[in-house]
């Protein structure tokens, strides 16, 4: 197990370096946005004094490298600065939004991951049957449709026509947890539909890939029924690729949901990011991007560690 710790520490260090590189890229990209920031924020009618005052507040007079290190120094301590538009601390703006996004991602993941793996196992078991084809076509259709389209279809059938679920996922502080689940069900379901296909197909492929192994034939000639051969003998050896795909999809649930949030008017971080880009609120844009990058890195790290833990060769040394 010491080796696993070793790997975690090394990967964390590497992740930190990656994050640093990404911070430079993010900062550089925001710098490259055309036009004058102060002008964009205040609009055409701004007076010269107002512009100058805003530039001074934002520190735009300083060279880029100084501003970068100011920002980085703050970010390391958790202080992402203040909004260029409203002057409120970025942390206060992002915090609740990010929590909402995380909640929705977890909600979708709790449904999607077990569903995808179960379906994957079942289609592997019933491979090349009608069920396999139908499941493949259905999930591929879901993944190929634009998210907003899926969202609107769900609204049409599960909200407008039947009234089972609300079409707008507005949150209020006096909701019970059940209310919350009910109100956010449609956006969560949309996201489930988007991510299930990928994970299910990887589960199926990883299992089928192992079916030619001698130990699978052994399990069969030992008289094990087909479901036991797959669940007990193939699946434990198929985790590594499945886990990696799950991690990618979880990251997508957090970072790729702008459209879903938009369709359901859900107050998540994606909407905030889009708003901030149009408003040129660069401290928020930078913070959001950094959070997204960290999410990707952490989830991939978790996937690597879990893959190692599922491999008995690495868990139990000779």
């Amino acid at each position, binding site marked *: 197990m010491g080796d696993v710790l070793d790997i975690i520490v090394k990967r964390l260090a590497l992740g930190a370096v990656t994050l640093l590189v990404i911070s430079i890229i993010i900062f550089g990209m925001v710098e490259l946005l055309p036009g004058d920031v102060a002008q964009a924020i205040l609009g055409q009618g701004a007076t010269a004094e107002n512009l100058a005052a805003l530039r001074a507040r934002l520190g735009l007079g300083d060279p880029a490298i100084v501003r970068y290190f100011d920002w980085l120094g703050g970010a390391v301590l958790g202080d992402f600065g203040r909004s260029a538009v409203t002057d409120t601390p970025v942390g206060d703006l992002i915090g609740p939004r990010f929590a909402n996004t995380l909640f929705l991602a977890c909600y979708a993941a709790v449904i999607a991951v077990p569903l995808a793996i179960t379906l994957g196992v079942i289609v592997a078991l019933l491979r090349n049957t009608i069920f396999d084809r139908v499941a493949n076509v259905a999930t591929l259709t879901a993944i190929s449709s634009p998210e907003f389209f899926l969202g609107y279809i769900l609204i049409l059938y599960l909200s407008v026509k039947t009234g089972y679920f609300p079409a707008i996922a507005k949150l209020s502080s006096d909701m019970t947890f059940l209310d919350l689940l009910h109100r956010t069900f449609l956006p969560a379901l949309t996201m489930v539909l988007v991510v299930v296909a990928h994970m299910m197909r990887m589960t199926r492929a990883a299992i089928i890939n192992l079916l030619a192994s001698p130990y699978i*034939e052994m399990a069969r000639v030992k008289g094990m029924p087909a479901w036991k051969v797959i669940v007990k003998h193939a699946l434990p050896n198929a985790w590594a690729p499945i886990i990696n795909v799950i991690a990618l999809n979880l990251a997508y649930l957090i970072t790729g949901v702008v459209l879903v949030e938009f369709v359901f008017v859900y107050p998540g971080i994606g909407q905030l990011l889009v708003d901030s880009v149009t408003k040129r609120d660069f401290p928020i844009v930078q913070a959001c991007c950094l959070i997204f990058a960290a999410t990707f890195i952490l989830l991939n790290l978790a996937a690597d560690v879990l893959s190692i833990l599922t491999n008995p060769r690495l868990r139990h040394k000779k």
Partner: protein
Amino acid sequence: MTEKKKEVLLQIKGLRIEGYSDDKWTEIVHGVDLTLHRGEVMGLIGESGAGKSTIGLAAMGFARDGCRISGGSVEFDGMELTTTPERDRRALRGSRIAYVAQSAAASFNPAHRLIDQHTETPTHYRIMKRMESQEDAMQLYERLRLPNPQEIGFRYPHQVSGGQLQRAMTAMAMACRPDLIIFDEPTTALDVTTQIEVLLAIRDIVEQFNTAAIYITHDLAVVAQMADTIKVLLKGNEVEESDTRSMLANPREDYTKSLWAVRSFQRDQKTRPTGDVAPVVSVQNVDAAYGKTKVLDNVSFDIHAGMTVAVVGESGSGKSTTARCITGLLPPTKGKVLFKGEELPASYKSRSKEQLRQAQMIYQMADTALNPKVRICDIIGRPAQFYSGLKGGELKSRVDELLDMIELEPSKYYYRYPTELSGGQKQRIGIARALAANPTFIICDEVTSALDQLVAEGILKLLDRLQKELNLAYMFITHDLATVRSIADEVVVMKQGQVVEQGPKDEMFTPPHHPYTDLLLSSVPEMDPDWLSRVVDERGVDNIGEAADTSA
């Protein structure tokens, strides 16, 4: 034993099996009959493609994916398996008919401990409770002479050696005390010294429980030790069947006789050139390590032009590692490798193209050593182009010439893909690829061990002819002493990373030997049904796989 033997346990009649390939079903077993009595052991022998494993599995009412039983009957203890529903057939497998696979290392699930795999069938079919079965497993481990029988089952397959795994798999087959066990080449992947342990363990336990067995192998000497009767198969047909002793003494059919007579190939032993000639390759006091584990310890030997040096030893003895040091894939931690008297840089990365060209390799698994997506002309043409800079028509005629050398017709094979060739042909392509660089030295790493004996003999003859024509030096890595006997000029015996003995072949095969060499030599099964019993008497049951204390 004689009385019990009369009761028929398995009766196969006119068994036909089809395999699915190239979008059609082709018959691969053409009406084979087989009768097995309780407690009887039948050996099935033949080359690859004879249908041995397919018939063995059919005896369990099982067909591999892409195979189907298309005719005939398989009657096990009064039950017709070809018409029984799959559910009932499945209930027989593991409990009344068990299977022991060729490679235990690949056939144990890497994700579960041995004991969990052992108790799976008994508990699934409620034949035993988990704890009962676990206790029983430990007793079986003990009977099979596994070390630490109380503890070994709680290990994962990768934590146990190949010979021990093969015995654990035999124990697993015994878990429900089946009436019949199918042994499918259970010792083929093992070293001779490990093989003898496993053979003895299998023979004893089958006798103790009076279990009937079908023993599948291509090794006649092995089957002679294990079987009461032998059935010879060729391309899905029965050639002949009779009891072991008369089969060995008096084979009737020509094909059987030809199997008996393999390894007739023998070439004259060459001696080193006299005078002060630098050897082609000289390995001098080489140490090597994988990470912190030392795997080679002070290895030294010379290989002269036009000569074959066989490097023998068990797996893990450092044979292939030595080859990696010579080719520079693994830089030695100490010592050096000289090529025609000149020291080679330790790593292949710092060697010149000319130095790289001189030493080439041929691998054990031609299947995996040839890129399946590349045509033969490119597989052979690439090194010819890389090392000699040939292009266009010159390159084509060079490839044609190389194909001629390996006795494959250029016009027929030039544009083919490796997957369209047989095992022996693929290995020939591997040889041509090595020759394309125009080397003076070739490392042959177990090049014949994956091939049938007759095909292997063809490869050995080819290598010998090429050696004479091109004055090549060979380093021939093998664990098969029969191969050594037929082609080597000098022998290097390795054990645990050290050279324990080396010298000209005839000296190595005449006593007195180093005790380890003696152990290797005397562990090679002989075509005598009493050989195993004799060796047991000589060495004792517990030291069967270990060197005698005193050298002969």
